[in-house]
């Protein structure tokens, strides 16, 4: 185990983007031509952030001496809205000593296999297989999958019919992040918030979809930083066309909204209803009690709650509030949907 931890740490170093690394670079090039909404800037950012999160200390902290009772064939259905999205599951499965049977995302089918190949090039022989969806039902004894409510119901039905028990399945469905502002945010925090909204075209499950703001706070600074961030992380070519339809709808129904030049982002004011990716909703509040009530109603859809340190002090203590700017830089040990993947894999 110790050698695998060191090996993973070394591979993360190789894959960090400071130097060129042929396997990674080829995978990035191929990923850009896959049917997705990734930009080269966003892919490199995702790789950097994820590699920075992997080192001996973070892996040991994450595992925390937990080990499974026996080896399992773990099926993982990857459905990637962001580059390298299934990496945490892959690492969790191999670090727990299970066999990994993965269905690759059509949007990102190159990065994960290339990462595994790099590990094997270090002298390891990972028990990792990539299969088609039909095959996973024949081979897997347990399952990790993410989807919408509708698709989770479908996959649960299929898993059940193939004898994969509910307690041996980890289904995730939470879909977006929220930010709670108090109006005292610094320029850096506004800039961080812009990243939380725009990276990966807003499609990640941690991207901010709702911004709660006091009624006397106008979104001008937010719009300013959204525009500035677009200079660093340009929009994918399809984004403006997608947002044009939503902008036309907001216009037709007289809903207040603003958008960036070339429709590279869209912000609307209104009720706390999350919109499509790239379209962030600005929700005004008069008291935090209102915000708490709304969030409690949406809690099964919220992946993360963000706020500045000063705003965090006013929020319920039992909420796991993260700093602005952290949506795409989660720790290795973060728990999607609040569920601990290592715990799940150790209790199969």
């Amino acid at each position: 185990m110790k050698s695998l931890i060191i090996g993973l740490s070394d591979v993360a170093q190789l894959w960090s983007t400071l130097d060129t690394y042929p396997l990674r670079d080829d995978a990035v090039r191929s990923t850009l031509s896959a049917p997705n909404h990734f930009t080269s800037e966003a892919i490199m950012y995702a790789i950097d952030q994820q590699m920075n999160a992997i080192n001996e200390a973070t892996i040991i902290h994450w595992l925390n001496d937990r080990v499974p009772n026996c080896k399992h064939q773990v099926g993982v259905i990857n459905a990637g809205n962001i580059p390298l999205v299934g990496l945490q599951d892959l690492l969790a499965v191999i670090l727990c000593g299970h066999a990994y049977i993965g269905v690759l995302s059509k949007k990102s089918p190159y990065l994960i296999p290339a990462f595994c190949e790099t590990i094997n090039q270090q002298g390891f022989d990972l028990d990792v297989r990539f299969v088609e969806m039909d095959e996973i039902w024949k081979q897997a004894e347990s399952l990790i999958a993410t989807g919408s409510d509708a698709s989770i119901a479908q996959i649960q039905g299929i898993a059940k019919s193939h004898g994969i028990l509910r307690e041996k399945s980890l289904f995730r469905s939470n879909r977006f992040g929220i930010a709670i502002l108090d109006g005292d945010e610094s320029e850096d925090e506004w800039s961080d918030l812009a990243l939380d909204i725009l990276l990966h075209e807003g499609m990640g499950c941690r991207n901010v979809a709702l911004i709660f703001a006091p009624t006397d706070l106008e979104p001008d600074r937010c719009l300013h930083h959204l525009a500035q961030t677009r200079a660093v992380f340009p929009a994918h070519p399809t984004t403006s066309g997608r947002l044009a339809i939503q902008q036309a709808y907001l216009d037709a129904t007289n809903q207040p909204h603003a958008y960036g030049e070339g429709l590279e982002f869209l912000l609307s004011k209104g009720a706390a209803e999350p919109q499509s990716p790239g379209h962030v909703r600005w929700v005004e509040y008069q008291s935090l009690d209102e915000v708490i009530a709304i969030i409690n109603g949406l809690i099964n859809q919220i992946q993360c709650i963000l706020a500045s340190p000063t705003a965090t002090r006013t929020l319920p203590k039992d909420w796991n509030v993260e700093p602005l700017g952290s949506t795409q830089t989660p720790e290795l040990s973060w728990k999607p949907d609040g569920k601990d993947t290592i715990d799940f894999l150790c209790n199969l």
Partner: protein
Amino acid sequence: MTLNEIETQFTELTTSDQFHRFEVVIESHQRAHCEVYSRYGRKYLPIAAFKHADVTTFPISEAEDIFMSSSTGGNERSRHFIRKMSIYQDAVCAGFESVFGPGPFTIWAFLPGYIPNSSLVRMLKILIERYGHDNSQFFLSDHLPQIESHDPPLIFFGAAFGLLDLVESNIYRLPGDARIVETGGMKTHRREMTRAELHAQLARGFGLQENRIWSEYGMCELLSQAYAKGGGVYYPPPWMRVIIVDPLNPEQILPEGEAGLLAITDLANIHTVSSILTEDLGVKRGHGFEVLGRFPGSALRGCNFLLDSG
């Protein structure tokens, strides 16, 4: 072709040419007289418009009725202003009769929690009045009405969650020729059940073959309904067209078998907007379609293997 002619003839159309001719006239009228639709400028108006605006081609003071949607989680309700109830009656009855026949039937309706001006309640009142035998009725308790052997065949309409509640607390034995018609309504109550599981459970609970569990697909914003005669494939009436579009780009039509949003043109919506982009995920199956569940725009955030597999 005038609007008046369309109002009286739309249920009789049979060919796609006729559909197209009716559609052109209706859409042109709606572009000219429905401010929201005119400003939107695209084909399929997002269904949420019925919450956010008055989607009409006429002054709302002239509406004969207003259908309201159910409200979930404190959200606003949709409002569908009905210019002429006769158009709705014609759509409901022609659609029903083409699927079930001329009747008479014993029609039961079990719709706990539905408001009186929901379109479903309105629809069942019309059906009971037009096709229902004396024993037809709305009921709310878990004691099913009596049915006599000489009564006409039973058609039992019910919201999915209500029917499930019934069979979870009791076992019933309906006559073998009875049909259950579940009208959906799973979105807030049972998030982890597929339609196939629902139908199997209803069949067991009511003592029927699974092919006696039928389904209806309708909503406040559409005046026509599609039916599934057992199984999960719905068939729209000839004056209603359903296509599947890419949720990320609703102007892109998806081929058969790929999951996407249902985009529907219902020619019975003559006086509001006929072409609606729903928030339902579905798949085209031949001339019919399957409904996979609710899929608001926010469902595009985060990973989703169903869309990824396309």
